[in-house]
């Protein structure tokens, strides 16, 4: 099997997460490239949750609806997902939980008495998942040693019992399909949240402040776990308002700080965002999108907050907004968001979604461009110190308390160069011009970055326009169908020139977005570009490769 998908499903509490990770690592060890999509409702036990682990010969960042293997810990999983089974697919199931299985002829089945095995071994019920994985390994010809190694590495406790249960599953199964020869050296398998976290760390993060909110909660958890290793202060305060303001306090005091949230929490941060704009105290916000309005579908994905991010906060100020499309971009741009926010003393938003944050895939650090340190402009001791000295670029040198001979005053009111409040009309204009002038220099600097990605030859006249986590699925599909992909990564300041170049020669531009109104299409419209058609999905589920293929074919017909 060169490119196949395994779906594992059951109730929340069945350990689907853990099983997913084991399966992913198992296939990763075998030299496959992996992408994992995880679908779960907003609850702690019960309901139905599933993952699709896709394995391929080349790097991927999308899942397919159709699957080759289905691992069912209960009947519901089969009922809900049997339509996904490709001809020749294999269903591995717990024959103690699923009696009388009737499937089409083309489907092969492998029932194991998983419940009984686990009981026999006196193991915890949750280990049914490991038993199934044992059978899975055997079924596709992965040696038990490989699996044992993975289990050992991934379980902090009860390794032996897990291995034993896996062996029982292994023994009870037979080899049905065969895995492909290794494609390459295994690569790290991480989530988008981890990529963002590592990127922030790479960018010099010292403080991470957040109030839990899906889909950025895993980022909080990850950084909290890494706090000691990376010398981070990770704080979870009373509310998102507290989060944002506390982080601005950190930044004032000279530390690099970031915060993370989703739409509802971001609402509460907007007043602080505007304060960042006025006071020129930098901040990085990781904004993970999910379907709204309001609480919406908390554990699903959406791309509905682009214009909110672009315009949030009263008044006019420069902001840097970047929407990374995959793990490497998430890492790279999270680091650069810190660098640029601190250099320009502006707020920066890393705009992601549940799909990117919780998707898991191979991370190839070698393919990430060099991340040069972009040093902030700091005070050289010229007295008197003026926190808001007006210069050509609009960037005033920074100093941090305690600093002899410098009085460092930042201010939410309009203010003069020293940071003292003013209501005078000429000073107001001068200072507003100073702050807005930074955009020009930021734009200039961004010309040295890949702000708009394109994939596929320039002679392809039909292009998919996408942003954020849709990169993966669009890129793979475009490759298959011979289309071009245009993916703006930086969204503010909008890289107009780079975008114009990117769409040069494109006759038909098809926007692919996870929202109901075509937010990127609307954005480019305000720069005079036009999407010819739109493929929009807003049920919280990301595009699957095969699903998008159908829609795109229709659109280009």
């Amino acid at each position, binding site marked *: 099997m060169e490119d196949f998908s395994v779906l594992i499903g059951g109730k929340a509490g069945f350990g689907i997460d853990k099983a997913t990770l084991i399966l992913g690592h198992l296939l990763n060890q075998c030299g496959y490239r992996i992408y994992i999509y995880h679908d779960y409702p907003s609850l702690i036990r019960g309901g139905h949750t599933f993952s699709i682990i896709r394995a391929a010969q080349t790097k991927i960042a999308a899942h397919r609806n159709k699957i080759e293997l289905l691992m069912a810990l209960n009947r519901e999983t089969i009922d809900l997902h049997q339509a996904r089974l490709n001809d020749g697919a294999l269903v591995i199931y717990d024959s103690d939980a699923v009696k009388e299985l009737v499937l089409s002829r083309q489907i092969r089945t492998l029932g194991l008495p998983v419940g009984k095995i686990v009981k026999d071994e006196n193991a915890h019920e949750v280990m049914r998942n490991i038993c199934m994985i044992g059978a899975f390994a055997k079924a596709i010809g992965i040696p038990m040693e490989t699996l044992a190694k993975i289990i050992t590495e991934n379980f902090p406790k009860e390794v032996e019992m897990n291995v034993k249960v896996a062996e029982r599953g292994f023994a009870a199964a037979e080899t049905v399909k065969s895995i492909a020869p290794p494609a390459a050296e295994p690569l790290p398998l991480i989530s988008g949240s981890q990529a963002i976290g590592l990127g922030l760390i790479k960018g010099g993060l010292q403080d991470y402040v957040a109030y839990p909110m899906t889909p950025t909660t895993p980022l909080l958890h990850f950084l909290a776990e890494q706090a000691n290793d990376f010398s981070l202060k990770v704080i979870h305060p009373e509310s998102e308002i507290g989060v944002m303001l506390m982080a601005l*306090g950190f930044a004032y005091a000279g530390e690099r700080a970031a915060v993370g949230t989703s739409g509802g929490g971001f609402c509460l941060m907007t007043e602080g965002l505007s304060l960042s704009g006025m006071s020129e105290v930098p901040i990085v916000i990781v904004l993970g999108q999910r379907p709204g309005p309001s609480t919406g579908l908390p554990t699903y994905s959406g791309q509905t907050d682009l214009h909110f991010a672009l315009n949030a906060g009263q008044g006019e100020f420069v902001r840097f907004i970047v929407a990374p499309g995959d793990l490497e971009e998430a890492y790279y741009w999270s680091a650069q968001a810190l660098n640029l926010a601190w250099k320009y003393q502006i707020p920066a938003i890393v705009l992601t979604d549940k799909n990117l944050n919780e998707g898991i895939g191979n991370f190839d650090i070698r393919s990430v461009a060099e991340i040069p340190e972009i040093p902030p402009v700091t005070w050289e001791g010229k007295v008197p110190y003026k926190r808001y000295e007006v210069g050509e670029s609009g960037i005033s040198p920074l100093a941090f308390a*305690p600093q002899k001979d410098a009085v460092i*005053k*930042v201010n939410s009111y309009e203010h003069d160069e020293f940071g*003292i409040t003013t209501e005078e009309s000429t000073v107001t204009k001068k200072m507003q011009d100073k702050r807005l002038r930074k955009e020009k220099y930021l734009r200039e600097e961004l010309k040295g970055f890949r702000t708009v990605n394109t994939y596929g030859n320039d002679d392809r006249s039909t292009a998919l326009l996408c942003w954020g986590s849709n990169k993966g699925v669009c890129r793979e599909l475009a490759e298959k169908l011979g289309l071009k992909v245009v993916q703006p990564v930086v969204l503010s300041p909008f890289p107009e020139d780079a975008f114009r170049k990117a769409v040069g020669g494109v006759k038909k531009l098809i926007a692919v977005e996870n929202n109901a109104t075509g937010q990127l299409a609307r954005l480019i419209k305000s720069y005079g570009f036009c999407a010819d058609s739109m493929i929009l999905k807003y049920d919280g589920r990301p595009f699957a490769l095969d699903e998008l293929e159908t829609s795109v074919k229709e659109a280009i017909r």
Partner: protein
Amino acid sequence: MSQTNLGSYSPNTWCPGCGNFSILNGIKTVLNELKDTAFPLENVVIVTGIGCHAKIVDYLNVNSFYAIHGRALPVAEGIKIAKPALKVICFAGDGDAYGEGLEHLVFAAKRNIDITVIIHNNRSYSLTAFQYSPTSFVGFKGRSTPHGSIEAPLNPLELMLASRATFLARGTSHGLPLLMRLFKESIMHKGFALVDVLQVCVTYNNLYEYYAKRVYELQDHDANDPMAALTRIREWDYNSDASIALGVFYRKEATTFEEKFAPPHITTQERDVRIKQLLRESI
């Protein structure tokens, strides 16, 4: 004592006779004194919300963060956690800290973070031209309650005691010597300290006479006894007519929040090495 003029060039726009002047003068004197005995001036950072009170940042030539209405506290906390050597002082209003941003106050107290909060409690929203505040008495005819407010005030000190604050005091803007003592003690207190200053707003809520008749200084009060503190704090509920105690109500020693972070320093190289290591472990 070396004298420094802590003033700035900003014109002062408080009303003549405003109680805020005492707070300004008091803090100047206290900081001048402490800079010789306790910490250099550049270690001071003041943080404010928005309101008449908050204009004090413009009048003090020290490090400052003029934040937004109700949000001085979390800013101050961030600064303190980042640099525990700094002396972080919040000047907040009653509308500001007991209203819009009350939650932050409770949590800062709960954490016992080592910052000082000075409340300009004029019991009115003054900069917005006169509305009732969380400490205004029942029947207050502010402009949002022209027929008299129908809410009883909070007793902020009682609330702060319940929130585990470790230093609680009250002064008035017309008792400068006591006020300065309270400022000094609260700044030197290791832990969360709050001074509720009954600040007279001459324009909208001139309670000068009212206070003059009722205030007395705490004597023989054991500020280490929480129950004694509570009794004194409950004596006057900011509404009914009663004697108004001034001085330190409560004081307690406890470890502070910012002490609990002592992350080892890390170099860029170490960071890179550990990132690589973590990635290796993810294979």
